[in-house]
């Protein structure tokens, strides 16, 4: 039913238009395009002839913002500083996220609690506040280059806490068989976590980590508020010489956009690659987040993610992921319950709690109902807990 072709990607919401409909759409299309074009032209005209000040489109102002010297002296050094801070921050964030993400999964309740507090705190405090605090603090302690370290540390703490959640959700999204198998082999809980589950979770979260890289790259621009000489700050400086700050900022904005956009595309492409390496679902977006203090909302988003997002269909496209996935991993105890309440795993009806009665179905009943060819999509026969599609 679902796989609509790209051509009429949104046609679920409206009937395939007839000749009259096509004409209406075409007219509306032209009108809409004309309206946007007019708005754009009006803005440009306003920029060319503002009530006060100069023509912002004149080549006199754009030339110093685009010539070779501007690139070698300002944009490229600024971009390098931005990338330097981003790369270091991403590496730090992954390290921080691994440590505290695993910390939140360990059997020891004390370590779990400490990790939870650290992660939730870092996730709740605005990055800018952390940056200002570290900047002033480092300068106060006499650490040279304080704005650089403040940018890096603030980004590590915030994005690290997001990565920690990704690790946690990555482990939670593994099929429970992974953990059961390793326990059956005689590994301890911690061993199973470290040797079996986390390595797979890392692959599962890589695309989301790349998406997080976009966030890091964007947030380095906050560094300009604390005088870090990143791309934004350098473009402001260039603009101070010829008073063409608007123009230099446009150039900086384009550079930021190109980099972030390319990273976003990379994050979309990565899941394909990563799927071969893990039993967990891989996703480009940092899904699990981020409503604080609660793990269960992952299910909502997980449900939303189950469909192919690129196809613009209302409703389900073909499922991309291993079906019995979300939160079925036993190591995340709370998730298990919520998952079973909200979703239904057709391939493993025996492990599903009925949402009404909160009980497991009778085993005998299941075997009777299960279709011969294994991979049954027919969950309705198991009785009470059908997930209607």
């Amino acid at each position, binding site marked *: 039913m*679902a796989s609509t072709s790209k051509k009429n990607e949104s046609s679920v919401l409206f009937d395939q238009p007839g000749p009259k409909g096509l004409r209406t759409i075409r007219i509306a299309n032209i009108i809409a395009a004309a309206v946007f074009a007019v708005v754009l032209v009006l803005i440009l005209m306003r920029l060319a002839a503002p009530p006060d000040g100069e023509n912002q489109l004149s080549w006199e102002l754009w030339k110093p913002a685009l010539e070779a010297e501007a690139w070698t002296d300002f944009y490229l050094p600024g971009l390098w500083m931005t990338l330097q801070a981003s790369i270091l921050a991403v590496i730090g964030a992954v390290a921080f996220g691994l440590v505290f993400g695993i910390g939140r999964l360990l059997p020891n309740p004390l370590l779990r609690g400490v990790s939870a507090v650290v992660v939730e705190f870092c996730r709740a405090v605005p990055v*800018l*506040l952390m940056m*200002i605090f570290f900047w002033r603090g480092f300068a106060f302690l006499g650490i040279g280059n304080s704005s650089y370290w403040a940018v890096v540390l603030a980004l590590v703490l915030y994005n690290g806490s997001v990565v920690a959640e990704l690790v946690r959700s990555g482990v939670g999204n593994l099929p429970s068989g992974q953990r059961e198998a390793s326990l059956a082999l005689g590994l301890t809980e911690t061993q199973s976590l470290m040797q079996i589950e986390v390595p797979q979770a890392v692959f599962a979260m890589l695309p989301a980590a790349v998406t997080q890289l976009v966030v890091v790259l964007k947030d380095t621009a*906050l560094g300009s508020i604390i005088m870090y000489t990143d791309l934004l700050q350098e473009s402001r400086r260039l603009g101070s010489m010829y008073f063409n700050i608007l123009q230099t900022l446009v150039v900086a*904005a384009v550079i930021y956009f190109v980099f972030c*956009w390319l990273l976003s595309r990379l994050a979309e492409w990565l899941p394909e690659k990563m799927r071969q390496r893990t039993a967990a679902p891989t996703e480009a977006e940092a899904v699990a987040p981020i409503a604080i203090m609660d793990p269960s*909302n992952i299910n909502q988003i997980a449900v939303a993610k189950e469909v192919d997002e690129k196809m613009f269909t209302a409703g389900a496209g073909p499922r991309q992921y291993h079906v019995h996935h979300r939160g079925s991993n036993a190591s995340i105890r709370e998730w298990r319950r*919520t998952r079973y309440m909200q979703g239904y795993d057709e391939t493993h009806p025996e492990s599903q709690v009925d949402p009404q009665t909160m009980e497991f179905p009778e085993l005998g009943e299941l075997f009777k109902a299960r279709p011969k060819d294994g991979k049954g999509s027919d969950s309705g026969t198991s009785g009470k807990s059908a997930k209607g599609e």
Partner: protein
Amino acid sequence: MDNFLALFGEYDVLGAFLVNIELTLWSALFSLVLGVVLVMMRISPISSLRAVAGGYVELFKNMPLTIIMVFMVLGAYAQLKLTFSDTFATNFFWLAVTGLSLYTAAFVCEALRSGINTVPLGQAEAARALGLNFMQSAGLIILPQAFRGSVAPLGNTLIALLKNSTVAAAASVSTETSSLMSEMIEFHADAIIEIFLIFAIGYVILIIPIGILTTYLSNKLAVRR
């Protein structure tokens, strides 16, 4: 403890938080409206609307908020003369709201889009079978369900918005928390940790209820299928 009380006495910390809350609420309202419009455009049959909405979302998702805020002052206000009030403080407040709304609308649109994907195809097909046109089926059938499915991402967007409201400092809003924190540290460098903790804990206190409410609503409103 005396230190904390002295700081509270000297500076209007609660007032600063109030500014951030106001920024957040207005921006949430406007970005929700704009986000709904954008998502309607993205699923509409008119391709130019789809293209514009898609371009808008890509543009604002991949642009640092700081730059948007700076453009609000130096571009929208200084050049395009987008003026809300003759009083600077009021004017910059609304410019910051505009910038935050434009930025957040892209994320609201994405959240709603993921919510739309939770609505089964049959719902749309049934709506069409009943003879509803695009606006009717989108407004009466799809979006109401999509909202329920996107409570969690919308809640996360709201939390991000509250935190992002500190970036209003880049749009010359000088009464909000990050500016006040800078000012306090400037004059009480020895109490820097206390000052940071005041603001950090303030945000934790604001964000926890949003998170809990989001979770509650997303579980309560979810359409069980």
